[in-house]
């Protein structure tokens, strides 16, 4: 995915990070390359241990890559110590200085940069207003709530106007309602400040709702980079499809290509059109994924047929688990209405029709 030079805020080129020595060597990052655009809300998404925090720490300068380059606006920053990088971090545990007030915390970065007192004061006031913490500026950080600490941590990292803001699972310590509030707050701050945000999370829903683009990571590698829509609807690999949302995997024989789509013949004998990951030429056999909400259950014949095994009610929708005649399982998500039930019962013989643009061929 080549970018125009100068457009990318951060460019990671062939970065490896190896921990330990000799036998116990572990590659936390295995030759990762990614380009993050200016003014973008970019998310590194993956399960714990996938290397997302390691990548963030390399960009911040808390660790140094074993190989590769990290460019900030075209300049290699990989060898610079953290205090020489115009990049700030919001830490998972906030890491607020307990011996300073809220205002002193926010002003710390500017003070270290040697800004004049008047400028620091004005900027701190501005930041306090931005995160709506004016009333608590003289409090100790131990005297404010978790959500307020989160705001202070954000203001502290934003105050020196970094080129890039790194956020290391900053919402994980907050309860559900506060987390939802902060998600909206973060989007607002990113929009108002125009700073590039690199956000690390293991929460796929959070990633989908907040990001401009997402990089899905697993075992030290970036598997796919794309918009939330791309990642959700056009997963390139099994891991991506499985990690993000629920999905159905079907084995199929590829019988032809046309218009950028593959003709996939399912085990049931039905043939459907399926989109294909960029630059991938499927062979004879492939895995096809269909999201549960993109399939429809019918009492007649469909693309697939099977028996209803279980019905789970979720309020907004109902999940109907079907055992296909080919012995695979398939889940259909059906929107609920007030007036009627889902219209099916356990043990019913059913057909499943797959929409015109519902299937995607995986790369594996």
């Amino acid at each position: 995915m080549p970018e125009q030079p100068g457009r990318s805020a951060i460019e990671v080129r062939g970065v490896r990070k190896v921990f330990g020595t000799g036998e116990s060597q572990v590659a936390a990052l295995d030759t990762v390359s990614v380009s993050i655009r200016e003014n973008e809300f970019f998310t590194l998404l993956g399960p714990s241990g996938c290397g997302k925090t390691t990548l963030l720490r390399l960009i911040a300068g808390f660790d140094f890559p074993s190989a590769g380059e990290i460019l900030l606006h075209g300049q290699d920053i990989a060898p610079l110590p953290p205090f020489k990088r115009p990049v700030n971090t919001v830490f998972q545990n906030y890491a607020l200085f307990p011996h300073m007030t809220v205002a002193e915390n926010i002003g710390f970065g500017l003070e270290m940069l040697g800004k004049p007192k008047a400028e620091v004061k004005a900027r701190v006031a501005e930041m306090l207003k931005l995160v709506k913490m004016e009333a608590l500026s003289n409090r100790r950080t131990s005297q404010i709530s978790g959500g307020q600490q989160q705001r202070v941590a954000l203001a502290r990292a934003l105050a020196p106007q970094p080129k890039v803001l790194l956020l290391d699972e900053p919402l994980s310590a907050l309860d559900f309602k506060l987390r939802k509030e902060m998600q909206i707050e973060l989007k607002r701050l990113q929009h108002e400040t125009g700073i590039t945000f690199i956000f690390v999370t293991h929460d796929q829903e959070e990633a989908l709702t907040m990001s401009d683009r997402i990089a899905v990571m697993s075992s030290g590698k970036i598997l796919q980079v794309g918009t939330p829509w791309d990642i959700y609807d056009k997963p390139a690999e099994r891991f991506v499809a499985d990690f993000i949302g629920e999905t159905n995997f079907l084995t199929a024989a590829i019988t032809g290509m046309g218009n950028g789509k593959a003709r996939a013949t399912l085990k049931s004998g039905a043939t459907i059109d399926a989109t294909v990951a960029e630059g991938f030429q499927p062979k004879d056999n492939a895995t096809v994924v269909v999201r549960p909400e993109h399939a429809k259950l019918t009492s007649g014949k469909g693309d697939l047929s099977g028996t209803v095994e279980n019905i789970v009610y979720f309020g907004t929708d109902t999940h109907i688990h079907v055992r296909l005649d080919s012995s695979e399982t398939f889940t259909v998500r059906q929107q609920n209405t007030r007036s009627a039930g889902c219209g099916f019962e356990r043990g019913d013989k059913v057909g499943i029709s797959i929409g015109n643009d519902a299937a995607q061929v995986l790369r594996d």
Partner: protein
Amino acid sequence: MASRFDIRRQTGFTTIAMICFFALYLPIVTLVVYAFNSGNSIAVWEGVSLRWFYQAWNNNQVVDAAIRSLQIALVAATVATIVATMAALATTRTKPYPGLGFKYAFINQPLMVPEIVTAVALLIFFSRIKIWTGYSGLGYLMAAHTAFCIPFAYLPIRARLESMDLSLETAAADLYATPWKAFRRVTFPLLWPGILAGLMLAFVISLDDVVITEFVKSGGQDTLPTYMLGQFRRFITPEINAISTVFLLISILIVTVFFFISRKKDHE
């Protein structure tokens, strides 16, 4: 459900506790009481008086020894605390590596080597230096005290550093603080109670030392403890009790301050 195990309900607990308290404090109470004896005996009570406190105050030998003790303790505790702070930083702000355990042992060595061995070794070592240099001042005592004070200062400082959130220093570096500025603005202010605790512990340990001082001191370099020991070889008057009582008060004062500082650390 059975009630939780509570040591206070165990048979004989109160009795044992009382015996321990008496064994610990009864001798000290006796010592303090006889400091106020108006007679010449440390065992026969004759009446209340501050006579022995006056006498000790006017005894030049006592006052000189006390000043000497304070001088040595002040220098030894200060130097030991500085060294211990640096040692604690070096041993905690690093990734564990082979040989780190050996370094801990090396720093804490004075706690493990029998004091009498250190004392004899220093006596022989310093006597050589005395011959070579001709210097025979308080420097030897200060150096010796500094050496055995280091582990005592080191322990609370290291404990404080280990309980400190490492991400605070990382955050300081992230916010453009150079390593020195990060130390001065973040690490040091948070480490301060540990350093003060180390300083006071070292001070009390130095003030109290007999064995090494007895071996290392030159003529006329008695500290308060060695002076008191010397008095026991002659005749004992309640003057000793009076000096001990003042000594005790100073120690209690320091320990109290120490307690409040370490308590403050927990409430932060």
